[in-house]
């Protein structure tokens, strides 16, 4: 089970549209508390004194309603629910709208060593970002061995044994203007829904490749920043394997094969490699064909339909005569 601490949440390096703009305003001693679930809770019921089924594993968010309610119960000197609230080991409280809760609430938080965070964002925007960020952190993930490239807008994961020429094929694709996302170790995450996102497993080595005979090369420096990408959706898997004369390879392409990664089925192809086969061009063509399929046009099926139509008409019979 994956977990992060509140301090990790505060120190995440997030891009502009996901920036949570969080700061800790109290309870610093509790920054080591752990977040174990990607969900949030609005503690309205608990503040009103109802603690059955309290989802205390979750981050507690105080919107305008909860904020006003705390103010009211503190003014009315009815603090029992706040005191009880802080006996639960929830990860932290977050106040959007840059709201600072009443002194009593802060004192209780300090006493319970529970972090109170604040964000200047309005709550609908803040919640959207927080859920996105948490789901990303807790998304199921796995690391696979392969090369991940983007060709004509299609993210292609090239897999195969060492020596089969994955990196060499990718290198030629980069040379032809496509981009590299990761070589060798590809970290795959299942984002919301059935969407697989791949990126380099190690940001430090990102966009280096090992080419036999050349050694380790830096793609960004050699081919420019236009030839690299940080992440991409995995839309096609190409398995390269050495040509096996006894194996029957797909010659028509009317059957769609898929490979499952983290419960998501991704279209896949098996491409046999032997001298004289230009793998990068095959991959480019596969990418274009995949785009056609996504647009609803299946070359092989369409071809087969035309053949059947032709067989039904007289013209087929005529040509036999």
């Amino acid at each position, binding site marked *: 089970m994956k977990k992060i601490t509140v301090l990790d949440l505060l120190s995440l390096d997030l891009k502009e549209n996901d920036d949570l703009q969080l700061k800790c305003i109290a309870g610093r001693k509790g920054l080591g508390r752990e977040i174990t679930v990607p969900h949030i809770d609005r503690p309205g019921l608990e503040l009103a004194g109802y603690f059955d089924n309290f989802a205390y594993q979750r981050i507690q968010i105080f919107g305008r309603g909860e904020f006003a309610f705390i103010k009211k119960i503190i003014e009315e000197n009815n603090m029992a629910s706040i005191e009880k609230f802080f006996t639960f080991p929830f990860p932290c409280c977050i106040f959007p709208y840059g709201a600072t809760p009443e002194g009593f609430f802060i004192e209780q938080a300090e006493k319970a060593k529970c972090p109170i965070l604040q964000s200047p964002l309005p709550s609908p925007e803040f919640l959207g970002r927080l859920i996105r960020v948490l789901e990303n952190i807790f998304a199921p993930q796995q*690391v696979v061995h392969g090369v991940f490239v983007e060709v004509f807008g299609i993210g292609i994961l090239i897999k195969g044994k060492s*020596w089969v020429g994955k990196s060499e094929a990718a290198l030629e694709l980069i040379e032809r203007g496509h981009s590299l996302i990761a*070589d060798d170790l590809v970290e795959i995450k299942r984002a919301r829904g059935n969407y697989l996102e791949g990126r380099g*497993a190690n940001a430090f*080595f990102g966009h280096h490749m090992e080419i036999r005979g050349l050694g*380790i090369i830096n793609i960004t420096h050699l081919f420019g920043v236009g030839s690299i990408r940080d992440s991409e959706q995995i839309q096609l898997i190409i398995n390269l394997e050495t040509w096996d004369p006894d194996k029957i390879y797909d010659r028509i392409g009317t059957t769609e094969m898929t490979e499952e990664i983290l419960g998501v089925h991704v279209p896949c192809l098996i491409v046999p490699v032997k001298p004289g086969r230009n793998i990068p061009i095959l991959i480019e063509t596969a990418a274009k064909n995949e785009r056609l399929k996504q647009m609803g046009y299946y070359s092989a099926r369409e071809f087969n339909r035309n053949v059947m139509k032709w067989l039904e008409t007289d013209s087929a019979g005529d040509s036999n005569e």
Partner: protein
Amino acid sequence: MIEKDVVVKNRAGIHARPAASIVKLANKFNSDIKIEKDGDEINAKSIMGIIALAATFKTELKIIAEGDDEEAAVEALYKLFENKFEEE
């Protein structure tokens, strides 16, 4: 399938040169060879993968091999680790 635990014994850890010796050795065997660190498995025939393990001095790893020469493969790699990659 055969597994064997090893510890990185050279002070510099697995940097580019030791990684290259591991890959060179691993590629002499037909078996699928993997190295595991903290539950993450990588292919022992890939240099970038081994470097990305970030295995430093005293890191505990596991060598896993599967194939017709698995025993010899694990033993050979184990020896390479024990000899500190002939570095020190």
